[in-house]
């Protein structure tokens, strides 16, 4: 699996994720400070339209579950 390192905009610490995640319209989750954030640059290769990823042909915010408390917070960053 290709990976990509990202920096959290809040605590500035770095962690790695599946590089494909950057090509999707979803936030990432900082394991250090728990922030959900949009990665600054979407460097990931965009998956061609209709490509099945994890068994689904479309991955967007609707299918992504975020913790209950996260939904109540105003959008950050």
């Amino acid at each position: 699996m290709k990976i990509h390192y990202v920096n959290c905009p809040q605590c500035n610490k770095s962690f790695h994720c599946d590089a494909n995640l950057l090509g999707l319209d979803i936030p990432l989750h900082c394991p250090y400070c728990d922030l959900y954030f949009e990665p600054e640059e979407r460097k990931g290769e965009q998956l061609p339209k209709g490509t099945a990823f994890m068994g689904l042909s479309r991955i967007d915010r609707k299918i992504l579950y975020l913790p209950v408390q996260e939904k109540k917070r105003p959008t950050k960053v």
Partner: protein
Amino acid sequence: MPKDLRTWLRDLEDRIPGEPLRVSKAVKPASFEVSSILHQLEERGNLSAVFFDKPTSVKAEPSDYRLLCHAFTTREKLAVSLDLQDSNRVSLFEKYLESSRQRKKTEIVAPSEAPVKEVIIREKSLDIGDLPIMRHNSMDGGPYLTPVVVAREPNGERYNTSWNRMMYIDSHHLAIYMSPRHLWTYFQEVEARQESMPIGVVLGHHMAFMLSASALVPPDEDEYEVAGGLLGEPLRVVPSEAYGERLLVPADAEIVIEGEILPQRRTLEGPFGEFTKLIGPQRLSWLFRARAITHRHRPIMHSVFGAHLDHLYAHFPIEASIFQRVKQVITGVKDICWLHSGGSFHLVISMKKRTEGEPMRAAMAALSASNFIKHVFVVDDDLDPENAKDVMWAVSNCCQADSDITVLHNIQGQLLDPSLRQETKGSGLIIDATRPLDRPYSPRAALPPEALEKIRLEDYISS
């Protein structure tokens, strides 16, 4: 009395003096306190099971739960789990292989006879965050459970057991990671019908039951029956609270979270430390929603310590199956062992070589048996394959690089191996470090055993 985690603990206490170590002080598992204790013990070579009397919940509040860790880490504990007196590795392999063949039909019991139903918490009032869930290594995406997941085959009667790490998200949700094996296959089928898949998240039982989750069993066989074989008695099961007879769960478990993997939903999961001792990246995984938690009074939760020795030892059934395959091909194979420093990627075979070329065949049998293996070292049967010093001695003294080392190209690798340049294909290595048969060979330096036995160091040197 049916076997459960409490009978396992009593057997452990009877057979291994001093185990488990007890920690009576309050600890915060979600703040790395449990993992810091386990890591330091492992660094000092103390691989005892550890029982935490007062672990706090994810929210750092006092809880009713207790926590058991390092239940695998040594052969002696595997011997307790498999009810074997001797803890020799080959005896353990043989006992595991024989017991797992003795399939036993499950026994369905009434809820009133099921200890796991002593306390029932329904959907409205449950909170997964009440459990003492560990953060294992830095960069973990959240607190992680390491349960055995039980699931019924879609449209079938058979049950699958598997280890699946699950990351805490909130009161009712966990992320679950499934690599493309049996559980994943079940879910593919269910999700295609836009349905959810009920599962039981088992957080503590007799370790023979837990070992069934890493058994390599063909998909058409029932792993509840394999668990019965390993326990030496039928596994007792009970209808679940949320799904009734549609999902039978182990009646003698300590804790079961009942719930389902949801279709068309995914969530962020990770990073998390793998058994390779590397941290796997954050990724999309599947979403689990809890419907009920049932547990015994004063429940004992079991957790495997991720990316540490415990994690590798929990894969023991896979090592046993590799032993069986290699032994079938070359009967002179005496023992096999994963070198702990290399995780499962380094396998050592010790064997009595009868003809040149046999070590190669033994190594190829191991490589074909499992993609957990990448590099194979073959040594003579006078060496202990578990002893890395012995193995490196053989590599340095019995091996010529131009003729005894073989690189294999284009074999299937392990997804967890980041050194793979191509997603699934990589290379393998065989080092034949057995002594040649066609000429006399210098013996290994050693002392006369009688002399060694006669001298007690304490009589000469005061420490």
